[in-house]
């Protein structure tokens, strides 16, 4: 590790985080707010009102040129050709084994002009991977440092953001986006998020991040908009059963095992990992990521071992107290024949076995 790598990076919202009294931690090489004083309160406020998240640490790549669609199509399981201008989808960069190099969002800005949003921890790896596989007439740009990205999430998100932008939010469907202005500055606004709530993500030039965040918090305060740290972001996404790279998905579990088969579009043609996934689909995945609730007392956390009929079957990938549901929940890979809802298994918590039960997911689903 070089010296420059060991110094945490800061997003353009850093001065604001400090001012708001954030507890800061190193996350994927970034000094990020883990909370602003109360994880549970932040979590609940997103479910009842709205929260503002700084997600500027995430990476943004531009993939442009005559062969841009072909390149992305070859690296991801979802079908990019189905995207209209101003539409995005959830997808992945898959390995030859059908596992995850990363999970990503692909935005189609125009024909053969794409924006890809990737996890902060994977920026260098992903960019090198795409570069190594990109053939033909295509220009790749790692624009990660050029953008500040903020999420406004919660039932009041639209009411908060609508008066501050010329983008028609009421007409914007889920996973659509548009160029426009937010608080008088150029922005890309998308109806996307990672909380299980309705909400938007706002991308602006990185030097404008702090100004826009301050403006949003100021104008949104009357509607209950408050800052949210990474800790509540994690519990919110877990209640909504959205996968976290490095926990629930990685380069050792396939897209099918991760229960994300819906992002594989078999009719689209070739992509990296397709053969491995097709074979697994035919034979059946040996294990599957399932949601569980603790039956006994205790919180099963990331990395705790799970046992089915006394046999060790792997590790809990995510686990936490769920602030909205007020239960101890988690995700775990279990053998395919023990994945049925209601199946009981055990998690070892500090040397003690505690009973857990497979439950339907998402754990939390908002009312529409």
């Amino acid at each position, binding site marked *: 590790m070089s010296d420059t790598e060991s110094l945490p990076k800061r997003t353009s919202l850093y001065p604001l985080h400090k001012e708001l009294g954030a507890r800061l931690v190193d996350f994927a090489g970034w000094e990020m707010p883990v909370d602003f004083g109360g*994880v*549970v309160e932040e979590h609940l406020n997103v479910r009842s009102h709205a929260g503002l998240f700084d997600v500027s640490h995430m990476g943004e790549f531009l993939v442009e040129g005559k062969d841009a669609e072909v390149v992305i199509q070859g690296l991801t399981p979802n079908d990019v050709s189905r995207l209209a201008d101003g539409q995005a989808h959830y997808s992945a960069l898959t390995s030859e084994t059908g596992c995850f190099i990363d999970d990503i969002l692909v935005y189609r800005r125009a024909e053969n002009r794409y924006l890809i949003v990737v996890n902060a921890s994977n920026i260098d790896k992903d960019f090198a991977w795409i570069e190594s596989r990109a053939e033909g007439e295509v220009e790749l740009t790692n624009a990660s440092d050029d953008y500040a990205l903020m999420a406004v999430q919660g039932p009041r998100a639209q009411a908060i953001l609508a008066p501050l932008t010329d983008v028609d939010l009421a007409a914007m469907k889920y996973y659509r986006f548009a160029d426009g202005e937010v608080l008088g500055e150029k922005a890309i606004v998308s109806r996307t998020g990672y909380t299980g709530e309705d909400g938007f993500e706002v991308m602006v030039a990185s030097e404008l991040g702090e100004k826009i965040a301050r403006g949003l918090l100021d104008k949104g305060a009357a509607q209950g908009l408050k800052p949210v740290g990474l*800790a*509540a972001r994690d519990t919110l996404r877990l209640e909504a059963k959205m996968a976290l790279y490095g926990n629930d998905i990685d380069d050792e579990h396939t897209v099918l095992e991760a229960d994300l088969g819906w992002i594989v579009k078999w009719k689209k043609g070739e992509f990296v990992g397709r053969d491995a996934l097709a074979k697994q689909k035919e034979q059946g995945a040996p294990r599957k990521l399932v949601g569980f609730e603790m039956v006994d007392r205790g919180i099963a956390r990331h990395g705790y071992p799970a046992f089915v009929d006394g046999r060790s079957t792997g590790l809990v990938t995510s686990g936490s107290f769920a*602030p909205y549901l007020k239960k101890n929940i988690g995700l775990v890979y279990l053998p395919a024949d023990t994945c049925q809802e209601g199946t009981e298994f055990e998690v070892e918590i500090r040397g003690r076995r505690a009973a857990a039960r497979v439950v339907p997911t998402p754990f939390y689903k908002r009312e529409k």
Partner: protein
Amino acid sequence: MLPDDRKYSKEHEWIQVDGDNGTIGITDFAQKELGDVVYVELPEVGAAVASMEVFGNIESVKAVSELFSPVSGEVVKINDKVVDAPELVNADPHGDAWLIVLKLSDASQLDGLMSAAQYQEYIDKEGKD
């Protein structure tokens, strides 16, 4: 202000002695550091607890922390209210959210602990580091 009717440990526990027994809890400083407490694991009544050893666990949303006993003794009472409502630790750490009562086996161990004023100085210093 820290109550001065008790002693404090470097691991941010307090102990209030009444006759042969000592009531133990975590300090306000500790609960603030932890954040929202969502789970408390305590020993059973009758268990032997040794000074400076782990007697239980306390969990916030993000992390698990061990509870260290300031003194040795036998557990004579545990606070079921805290087990059922862990958020009590955030609300009243020096009062209703006491954790266990120990029958002290060696009262001289109390001499190694801090007074309220000493503990205040200790956390002021720790906060600056």
